[in-house]
C-alpha cells in the first residue's frame, strides 16, 4: 500500500562525481595515490582507496535526539544481524547522532548542516524522542534551538523519516498524564510526510536495524499498516506468537508471582499481561539475539509498543483503571456499583409503588377497567 521508493540518486560515487566534473581516469588515480600517501599506505593500498572511491556512496543518515532516554540508541547498537559496526562502516553514513559522533558543538552542527545541504531530498532521517510543543517548546533545546524548530528544518529535505521507539511514535512516558511538557510524537509535528513508526520502549535492536536494512536492500519503504508501523514487525500481537498461549487457552494462569503456576510457566494474563492488546515482534524475534522476551522471563508484557500504554495501567491487573476514577477502580467495581445502585433504586421504586398502589389502582378503575371491583382487586394484589 505504501511502497514509496527511496530515491536512489544518493548512490553516486566519488569517481562518478570526478568524471562529471571533467576529470579523467588518470587524474582520479593520481588523486588516489596522493590520498594513499597521506594515509601512509604502500603501493598496494592505492587500489584499495581507488576501489572505495569507485563504489557507490553510502546513503546519508541523520539521527536526531529529542525528549528521550536514549534506550532506542542503546537498543540499536544491540542488533546482532546486521551488526551495527557493519551497518555504520559499510551500509550507511550516519552523519549526525549526538550519542556517538566525534565532534561536539559547532563542529557537530557542521556535520548536520553539511548533510542537510549536500544531500537535500536524499537523506534518511531517524528521530528518537518526542518533541515538546507550544508553550513548552523550551523543554528541549539543542544548540539554543527548540526540538520543534530543529525537527521542522531537518524533516524538510528528508527522503524518508523513521520515528524510533514509543517516544517518537506516540510520546511514551513523558506524554503520559498529565503530559506536563506537551510531549508530542513526531507525526503530529511533521504532517506532510510519511513517517515510519517503529514503536516499542525501546524497539528490538534487530527490528530497528531491520527497518533500515529493508530500505537499503529493497530500495523502498517497508509496507506500513494503517497506523504507520511496518507490517513486517508489527502485524501480530505478542499474544499471537507467545509460546505460553496453550496455557491461556487451557485456562492455566499464574495467580500471583512466584506461585507454583509461575514456576510452571503458565500464562501471565491474570497478573496483567498486555500481550493480547500489544503489537510487536517480541514473541518471534525475541530480545538480545533471541535470548528471551519479557514473558519468557516471567513478567507480563506491559504493552510498551502501544500508544498510551502508560495510561492503560495499573500494569498488574488485567482490567485497566477506570478512566477518571483513580487507582483501584476498575470497570468491574464501577459496573457492579452501578448495577447495585440500579437494583436499589428499583427496589425503592417497587416499595413506593406498593405503598401507592391503592391510589393507582383506584385511578385505573376510575378510567373504567371492565368488571373490576376494588375489593377483589386488593386481595389479588396481595397474593402477587
Amino acid at each position: 500500500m505504501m511502497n514509496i521508493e527511496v530515491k536512489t540518486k544518493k548512490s553516486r560515487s566519488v569517481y562518478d562525481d570526478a568524471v562529471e566534473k571533467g576529470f579523467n581516469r588518470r587524474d582520479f588515480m593520481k588523486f588516489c595515490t596522493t590520498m594513499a600517501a597521506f594515509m601512509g599506505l604502500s603501493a598496494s593500498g592505492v587500489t584499495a582507496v581507488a576501489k572505495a572511491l569507485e563504489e557507490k556512496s553510502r546513503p546519508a543518515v541523520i539521527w536526531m535526539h529529542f525528549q528521550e532516554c536514549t534506550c532506542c540508541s542503546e537498543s540499536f547498537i544491540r542488533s546482532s544481524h546486521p551488526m551495527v559496526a557493519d551497518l555504520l562502516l559499510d551500509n550507511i553514513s550516519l552523519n549526525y547522532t549526538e550519542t556517538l559522533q566525534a565532534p561536539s558543538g559547532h563542529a557537530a552542527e557542521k556535520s548536520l548542516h553539511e548533510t542537510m545541504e549536500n544531500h537535500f531530498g536524499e537523506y534518511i532521517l531517524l528521530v528518537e524522542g518526542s518533541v515538546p510543543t507550544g508553550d513548552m517548546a523550551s523543554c528541549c533545546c539543542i544548540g539554543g534551538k527548540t526540538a520543534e524548530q530543529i525537527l521542522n528544518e531537518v524533516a524538510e529535505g528528508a527522503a524518508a523519516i523513521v520515528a524510533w521507539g514509543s517516544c517518537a511514535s506516540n510520546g511514551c512516558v513523558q506524554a503520559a498524564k498529565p503530559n506536563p511538557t506537551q510531549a508530542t510524537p513526531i507525526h503530529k509535528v511533521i504532517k506532510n510526510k510519511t513517517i515510519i513508526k517503529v514503536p516499542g520502549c525501546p524497539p528490538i535492536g534487530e527490528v530497528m536495524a531491520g527497518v533500515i536494512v529493508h530500505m537499503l536492500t529493497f530500495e523502498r519503504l517497508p509496507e506500513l499498516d494503517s497506523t504507520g508501523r511496518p507490517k513486517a514487525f508489527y502485524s501480530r500481537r505478542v499474544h499471537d506468537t507467545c509460546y505460553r498461549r496453550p496455557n491461556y487457552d487451557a485456562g492455566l494462569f499464574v495467580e500471583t508471582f512466584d506461585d507454583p503456576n509461575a514456576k510452571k510457566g503458565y500464562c501471565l494474563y491474570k497478573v496483567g499481561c498486555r500481550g493480547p492488546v500489544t503489537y510487536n515482534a517480541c514473541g518471534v524475534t525475541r530480545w538480545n539475539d533471541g535470548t528471551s522476551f519479557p514473558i519468557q522471563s516471567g513478567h507480563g508484557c506491559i504493552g510498551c509498543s502501544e500508544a498510551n500504554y502508560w495510561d492503560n495501567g495499573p500494569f498488574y491487573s488485567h482490567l485497566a483503571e477506570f478512566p477518571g476514577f483513580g487507582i483501584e477502580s476498575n470497570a468491574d467495581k464501577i459496573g457492579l456499583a452501578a448495577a447495585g445502585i440500579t437494583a436499589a433504586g428499583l427496589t425503592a421504586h417497587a416499595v413506593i409503588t406498593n405503598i401507592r398502589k391503592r391510589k393507582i389502582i383506584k385511578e385505573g378503575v376510575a378510567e373504567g377497567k371492565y368488571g373490576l371491583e376494588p375489593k377483589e382487586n386488593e386481595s389479588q394484589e396481595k397474593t402477587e
Partner: protein
Amino acid sequence: MAIQPALHTTQLRRVFVFSLSVRLFHWINALSIFVLAVTGYLIGNPPALLTSQEAYQGYWFGITRFIHFIFAYIFLFNFVIRIYRLFFGNRFETWRNFIPSNKGFFREIWQVVRTDFLFTRGHLVSIGHNALAGISYLFLFILMILQIITGFGIYAAMSDAVIVDLFNWVVPIFGGDAATRLWHHIFMWGFVVFTLIHIYLVFYHDYVDGRGEVSSIFGGWKFVESDTMKEQDTTDYNK
C-alpha cells in the same frame, strides 16, 4: 393534581403489535446478551480452575472464548434482522417508535415519567411500547452497536474473516486495543443495568397499564382501550 375519578366504561381490543420476527429477535437477543455477558465476564476474570494440569489436557478458556465468538455472530445477525424490521416492520416496530420525532413523542415521555416516578396515572397514547421505553431501546441499540464494533474491533486481530475485516478501523479510533477492550468490558455493565431496569419496568407497566405488556413479547398481542385507538390500528393489524 390528582386526576378526578370519572366513571365511564371502555372496551379492550386485541391488537397485534409484535410480529414473530421481532419476538424472535427479542428472545434470541436476550439469550445472546446473557451468554455474551457471562462468557465475556469470564474472559475478563478467569477463575482459577484446574490449576495443576498440563496445557494439552484442557481447553476451557478457549471454549469460553469460542462460545463468546459464536454468540457474537448470532448477536450481530439477529440485530441485522431487527434493523431490517426498523424500516420494513409494522407500525409498532419501525424506527419512529425509537427516535423522538415529534411533539407527541416528548409529551408521551413526560406522561410516562409521571406514571413511573410521580406515581400519577396518565393517559397512555402509544399502543406499542411507550415513548420512554422507546428511548431506552434506542439507547440499547446504540449500546449494541458499540458492543459489536468494539467486540469485532478487537476480534479483527484474531481473524481474517471478511466480516471481521470490516471492523479494522475501530481500534485506532478507540486509541489502541487495550482501550477498545476496556470499553468493551465497560459496555457489558451497560447491558446489565439496562436489563435490570427493563425487566422491572416491563412488569411494572404490565401492572399499571393493564394492557398485557409482558404477554405481548411472547404472543404478540396487547389489549388496548378501544377509545384510545385510531381506526387503522384495528384495521391494519388486528387480524
